[in-house]
């Protein structure tokens, strides 16, 4: 589902200043077209993740930077593995 900035704020429960900071840090990178930001479900899930890391696990802003960077690499690797598996014919489609 595509969301406007306002819909994203409502759905994620984030304060607008918090969102601005996260955007500045590139923790969230929504699509942008014609000067409007468009958020997806994955951005909501990522916002919940960041909140959980801060509130539940006690990670600070520096820590979030590191965690997200490594996590994005893990998912990039997993994606490459999935494609490789498909390529060698062992995948499910």
């Amino acid at each position, binding site marked *: 589902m595509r969301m406007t900035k306002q819909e994203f704020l409502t759905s994620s429960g984030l304060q607008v200043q918090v969102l601005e900071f996260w955007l500045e840090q590139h923790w969230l990178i929504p699509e942008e077209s014609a000067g409007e930001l468009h958020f997806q479900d*994955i951005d909501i899930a*990522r916002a919940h993740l960041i909140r959980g890391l801060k509130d539940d696990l006690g990670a600070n802003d520096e820590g979030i930077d590191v*965690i997200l*960077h490594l996590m*994005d690499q*893990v998912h*990039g690797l*997993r994606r490459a593995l999935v494609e*490789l598996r498909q*390529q060698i014919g062992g995948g499910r489609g």
Partner: protein
Amino acid sequence: MKNPYEVLGVAQTASAAEIQSAYRKLAKKLHPDLNPGDKAAEEKFKEVAGAYDLLSDADKRKRFDAGEIDASGAERPQHHYYRDFASSDQGNPYADASGFADFMDEDDALAEFLRRSQRTRANRRGQDLHYHLAVDFVDSITGATQRLNLPDGSTIDVKIPPGLVDGQTLRLKGKGAPGTGKGGPGDALIEIEVRPDRRFTREGDDITLELPISLTEAVLGGPVRVPTPTGDVTMSVPKGSNTGTKLRLRGKGAPRRGGGQGDQFVRLKVVLPKTPDPELEAFVSTWKGKDYNPREGAAS
């Protein structure tokens, strides 16, 4: 469910700070998003999170200690984690190839494969997908929401704008094939077919309806119910109306581009009773005007 103190590995006398610290220690190991490939982590984490939810709430903890509530139902409800989205086929715009970028520099089959897969993945917008949707005439005038079933089993709710014409194409942004990287999805292009209606025909913004009226209504006039796309209205038929007489219902047509509405035209059609009526026959044969010839003076 297990004893929450045991789950977190703390004593029953543990302070709130000790409970939080124990939870954090476990969550750092078990959080499903920190274990994207470990299915079992989610189950374990649910247990730990449930125990923490119970013990971190002073009131709930007191009631649990007093034996008023038990630990069942303390599990957190089903939850979607970031990893569920990050590894979906929709593509993850955040996924980063820098973790294996060095492999791509090598000169072997794996490097070749990775380079190729990166090229096709790099921020490409998804394809536009074409669909066909048949819409009822009335919905095409008033607007509606109609569900479109896609070949993959999913559905899109298509908003039909009022006044849509046959053959028009609607573009639903972002409803096409998923893109790659930050490319974003393509659009769904939906060609609309307006199903013909038994009653209404459309010309431009105007709608025409043929309305049968009785002989009595034609001769004496009077109010009749007329269907329009937005519901029935009452219209008065003037005295002495004829088959072919056209009446106008202002603003009951299709919405005009740029505002306003077209009109609905009602073409009257005088209809005699289905079975011959002896009384009517007797009346007409004694009717003074019976020799009126509508063909008189018409070109032969």
